[in-house]
């Protein structure tokens, strides 16, 4: 290898001098900078000497083997395609149940639940703060009754369900478990994912109820309870998606997500949870943005980093070293102008996710810069995945870009840059990632880093350095007329009526007792999940359960950092 690399280096110098330079002197130079979306500077071309420092067996290896750069399973999509899982939910449980059944009929292979903002914030539909928001951005859920309707006719032993929810994650997991019990499905057959990633809420998404320490405690309670009760369910989806949507670079997305993942693992270890029991129930969630190769490299680097990290934490089971991840195409890249162009953007981003080896994928609908997806738009989004899966041929070979000089160089480069961030965060915590991440939340480190990157992105757009087709270049005079999904204003009234009815019919004494048990569990530092589970089963509302926790832990108001 050494001799050959030397030869290639010499040849490269010769090429630069004899071939490239004369060419550049004769042709017009492009004024734009050649760099990735994250600002990594790029050469004209890559060759074996750029990756000569990598050890094929140690750094790449074979799929299904450490460090899993090329995929966590030996056969990847030859064995099983990724789960096609479209994030969907709106209106009442009935509306969403109907949309889910339509998607399953059209070939979707997993469910993914979008909740409305009151539910995400742990408020009931009749809370004054919920006015105008019930059922708008997702489905409204107040009690177990809504879940009974949501999963009516959907067999939980046959389908996996993802729940994008954070402060009330434990409540939703309890509801799903209760529905499984009602359907008579053995607990170890319940599959799916609860997002349950509070740390990134403080960095980016801002769905925050309890303070950081209490939030981490609840997340860890869910780990402890979930390992015993729902052993096949992903108990967290450690998410970079929202960090990216808030304006971070790909490198920041990767670094902060992995830092959060490490913080959760440390919190679990501190609790005394066996890392090899927990690890298979961890999952990740990334964004797939516009820079095709940078995204692919990011996914490959992520897998390699996590494998090393878990090994270092002492995980012994090879399955604990797997990074399983879901990908969503980047919502923030969708344009309101010329909305059909979004189909092309989504296709490229989805292709990057597939070439990067995701386990599950959501493709955005072309109308999402206007409203929630219409039925036609969501169908096209699903078809995009199906065309990639069944027509393009990219699923025939595992990690088809492995060995590409550029992709391997970029994978390595992104990994190195991400490690720098991780080390910085670890230093903030004096060697502890858990303390480092909490420190970074407290001192505004994450928010500021992301905010700087988002301002730079915007500046590039304003100055025309970043071209957005149909927005700052190639504009047309258009009349914007695509069909838009409208949420019936009656939804809010109907939902509040249902809530009233449930409250009138339930055993209020049981509710009261369960909420008191929850309160004392919180006060005594016990695991909150057993009380949450019983409260849910007695039809306590999300607002009542979160309200009880707020009484003990207080609510958190985020400092304002522009």
């Amino acid at each position, binding site marked *: 290898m050494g001799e050959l690399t030397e030869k290639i280096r010499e040849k490269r110098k010769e090429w630069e001098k004899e071939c490239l330079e004369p060419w550049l002197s004769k042709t017009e130079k492009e004024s734009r900078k050649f760099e990735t979306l994250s600002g990594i500077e790029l050469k004209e071309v890559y060759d074996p000497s750029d990756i000569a420092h990598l050890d094929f067996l140690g750094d790449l290896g074979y799929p299904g083997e450490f460090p899993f750069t090329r995929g966590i399973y030996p056969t990847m999509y030859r064995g099983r395609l990724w789960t096609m899982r479209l994030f969907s939910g709106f209106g009442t449980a009935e509306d969403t149940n109907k949309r889910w059944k339509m998607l399953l009929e059209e070939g979707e292979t997993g469910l993914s639940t979008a909740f409305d*903002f009151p539910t995400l914030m742990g*408020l009931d539909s009749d809370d004054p703060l919920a006015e*105008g928001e019930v059922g*708008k*951005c997702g489905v409204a859920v107040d009690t177990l009754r809504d879940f009974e309707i949501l999963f009516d006719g959907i067999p939980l032993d046959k389908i996996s369900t993802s729940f994008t929810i954070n402060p009330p994650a434990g409540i939703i997991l309890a509801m799903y478990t209760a529905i499984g019990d009602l359907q008579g499905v053995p607990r170890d057959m319940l599959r799916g994912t609860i997002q349950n990633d509070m740390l990134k809420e403080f960095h980016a998404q801002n769905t925050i109820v309890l303070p950081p320490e209490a939030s981490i405690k609840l997340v860890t309670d869910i780990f402890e309870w979930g390992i015993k009760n729902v052993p096949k369910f992903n108990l967290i989806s450690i998410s970079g998606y929202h960090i990216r949507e808030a304006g971070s670079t790909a490198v920041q997305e990767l670094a902060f997500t992995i830092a959060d993942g490490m913080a959760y693992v440390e919190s679990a270890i501190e609790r005394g949870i066996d890392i090899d029991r927990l690890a298979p129930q961890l999952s990740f969630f990334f964004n797939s943005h516009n820079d095709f190769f940078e995204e692919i490299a990011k996914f490959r680097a992520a897998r390699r980093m996590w494998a090393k990290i878990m090994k270092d934490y002492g995980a012994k089971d090879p399955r604990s070293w797997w990074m399983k991840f879901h990908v969503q195409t980047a919502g923030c890249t969708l344009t309101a102008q010329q909305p059909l162009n979004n189909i092309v953007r989504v296709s490229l981003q989805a292709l990057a996710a597939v070439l990067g080896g995701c386990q599950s994928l959501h493709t955005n609908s072309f109308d999402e*810069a206007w409203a929630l997806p219409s039925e036609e738009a969501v169908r096209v989004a699903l078809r995009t995945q199906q065309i990639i899966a069944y027509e393009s041929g990219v699923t025939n070979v595992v990690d088809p870009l492995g060995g590409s000089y550029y992709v391997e160089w970029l994978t390595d480069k992104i990994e190195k840059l991400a490690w720098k961030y991780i080390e910085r965060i670890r230093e903030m915590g004096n060697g502890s990632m858990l303390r480092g991440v909490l420190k970074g939340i407290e001192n505004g480190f994450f928010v500021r880093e992301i905010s700087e990157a988002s301002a730079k992105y915007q500046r590039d757009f*304003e100055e025309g350095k970043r071209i*957005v087709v149909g927005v700052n270049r190639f504009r047309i005079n258009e009349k914007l007329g695509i069909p838009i999904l409208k949420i019936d204003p009656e939804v809010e009234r109907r939902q509040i009526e249902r809530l009233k009815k449930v409250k009138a019919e339930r055993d209020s004494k049981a509710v009261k007792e369960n909420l008191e048990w929850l309160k004392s569990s919180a006060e005594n530092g016990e695991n909150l999940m057993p009380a949450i589970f019983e409260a849910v089963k007695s039809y306590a509302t999300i607002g009542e359960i979160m309200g009880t926790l707020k009484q003990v832990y207080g609510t958190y108001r*985020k400092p304002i950092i522009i």
Partner: protein
Amino acid sequence: MDKIRVLIAKIGLDGHDRGAKVIARFLRDAGFEVIYTGIHRTPQEVARAVIDEDVDVLGISILSGAHNTIVPRVLDYIRQYGGNPQDLVVLVGGTIPAEDIAKLREIGVDEVFIPGTPISEIIRFIKEKVAEKRGKL
């Protein structure tokens, strides 16, 4: 001319504040005095701030689809607190369907900016509109 004072507001439960923050930052860089409310404010809180801070411009950033409820609510509270929304430049930015844009204009919103609008365009609009409204006062 006095410095233009702008209040950028996030109202309701939606925490997506990338747009609000980037606008606040760029308006500040353009020489405006900018106040950002932070997330999860109520219509009352924002209306109160409009009056107390005596701003020229109120920019509401909203992606949750609750604009038809929230925006009229804010304007009502401004009136209730003794202000006149017509003296203000009221802007809304975010994911707003085309037919709702017309409705918001009818109730007194001066302009709705959809995603992708260059901030330079928003700055130009604010300068013109504030000059026009100050001229009338």
